């Protein structure tokens, strides 16, 4: 052993060798991006909500939230927003009738039945489907689903329900919206089902459960809040979707839940009106913001519910 003293040792370098400017610059840029996206979002919300005082100084609050007719552009305008809210709900309802069973079924298949190879192929396809431009779905609704419904309508149905739909119908729009949100519903439901611990499945198999019983009696209940979160997010996508309803649902603000009638969902109103010939400062101009703000509030609440549900689910198993 050499008897080195303290001073003989090579000095240990703890001081930074360079000031690492590049790293700091990148850090700054990343922080800037994060803050910018928040600021922009807040800006959009402000832009949407700031014309509201002006709108409600022109249109009575009670009239807006009433079932009066919806005709903001007429010479003697009328602003019963319920007509177009119900239009949105109508289309959303049919979308859910399609998307819930199909989305949940796809999720159960992917997480409990599909082999590793099938999952490897199907999961990415599902994710790609989420990225298909909505106008493509709109064209699909208009050129394929609408004629299909018209030619095959069950005319034996009682009352007005037996009338075949025209070129615009809530049903056609709803079905296509439903198809559009299946991937959203399925992939979130599948994520939360895959997160159910393996040990729960083994426990269930160990008691003599069949695959189907494991899926429906153990995995689905255990993943329920995540599955519901997927539903809610799907609903909020359906509510906010514009292109499909613009092309397929029509322009008549009928307050109906019938699938064979034309309705005017909120997004379709905004889309039609904003692309038309309107001048700033008119009642119609402000109406767009009022409907937009209401729509934003609806989807915002839905997304909040969805986030809360997912969080609750995480807490349960982590």
């Amino acid at each position, binding site marked *: 052993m050499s008897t080195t003293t303290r001073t003989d040792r090579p000095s240990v370098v703890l001081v930074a060798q360079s000031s690492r400017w590049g790293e700091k610059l990148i850090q700054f840029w990343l922080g800037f991006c994060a803050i910018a996206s928040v600021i922009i979002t807040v800006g959009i919300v402000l832009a949407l909500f700031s014309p509201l005082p002006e709108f409600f100084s022109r249109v009575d609050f009670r009239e807006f939230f009433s079932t009066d007719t919806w005709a903001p552009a007429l010479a003697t305008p009328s602003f019963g927003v319920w007509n177009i809210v119900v239009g949105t709900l109508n289309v959303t309802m049919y979308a859910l009738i399609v998307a819930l069973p199909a989305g949940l079924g796809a999720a159960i298949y992917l997480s409990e039945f599909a082999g590793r190879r099938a999952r490897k192929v199907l999961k990415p396809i599902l994710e790609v489907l989420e990225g298909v431009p909505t106008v493509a779905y709109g064209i699909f609704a208009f050129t394929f689903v609408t004629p299909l419904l018209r030619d095959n309508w069950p005319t034996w149905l009682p009352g007005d329900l037996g009338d075949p739909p025209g070129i615009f119908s809530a049903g056609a729009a709803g079905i296509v919206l439903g198809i559009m949100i299946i991937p959203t519903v399925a992939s979130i439901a599948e994520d939360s089902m895959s997160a159910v611990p393996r040990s*729960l499945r083994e*426990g269930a*198999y160990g008691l*003599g459960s069949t695959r189907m019983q494991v899926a429906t009696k153990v995995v689905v209940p255990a993943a329920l809040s995540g599955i519901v979160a997927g539903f809610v997010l799907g609903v909020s996508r359906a509510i906010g979707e514009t292109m499909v309803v613009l092309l397929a649902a029509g322009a008549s603000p009928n307050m109906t839940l019938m699938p064979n009638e034309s309705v005017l969902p909120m997004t379709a109103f905004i889309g039609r009106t904003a692309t038309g010939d309107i001048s700033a400062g008119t009642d119609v101009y402000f109406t767009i913001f009022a409907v937009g703000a209401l729509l934003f509030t609806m989807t915002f609440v839905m997304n909040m519910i969805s986030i809360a549900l997912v969080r609750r689910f995480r807490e349960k198993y982590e």
Partner: protein
Amino acid sequence: MTSQTSTDAFTDTRGHVPPVMATRGLNVYYGDFHAVDDVNLDFNRREVTALIGPSGCGKSTVLRSLNRMNDLIPSARIEGEVTYHGQNIYQPKIDPIEVRRRIGMVFQKPNPFPKSIFDNVAYGPRVTKMKVDSMSDLVEQSLRRAALWDEVKDNLKGSAFGLSGGQQQRLCIARAIATSPDVILLDEPCSALDPIATAAIEDLMTDLKQEYTQIIVTHNMQQAARISDTTAFFTAGLDQDNGKRIGRLVEYNDTSTIFNNPAEKSTEDYVSGRFG
């Protein structure tokens, strides 16, 4: 109990009445990996058999092959035979669901379902569509036999997640008992529990001997010595073909023989704590 007219060709290696379960030439592979090599064991009626040995020697693998739980692992493959009352449970015509109804399993970590205590116990009878006169009687009976009734009887609707680890494990045993299995497999059921909860499970297993054949994997030598009638000692040796680790059965005998007078040096080293 009915006497068994076993038609199985095996003779019990230890001179008992025909065993409830047996393995002959059991080999298990995970893909290319040969995990356990040529295991021959007999499990006698209403006895506790302990499977002991160092980590990774294939105890869980052997245990899981006894009720076809390995079917759930895509890469797992079995060679040889596992018989239950003389029938090879790996024959193509055998339904693994039926096998698992008769050969229940309790896992290392308590895994109650996120349901009420009552629904956890009632789960097995419900999915297997057992004919029961009164589900609540069956639940009570199962919880009593699992020595949990007094602690939960006022809270049957409460979530199973609200119980302590030891209570959850006894709930899992109650859940397994509720389907009236014949054999219960337990994979280190006490390894996540404190000594008091462990003692409760051990007492319970001793009680359950009156009705069930039990096979337990344990890391705890004292536990094996206390509760088991027979003990199988496994170890991981080197595969002569490829030099990889492979699980082997070293010695299988009455527990007292394994602990006091083992035939193999490695068994003696292990049970006396000089190994593993």
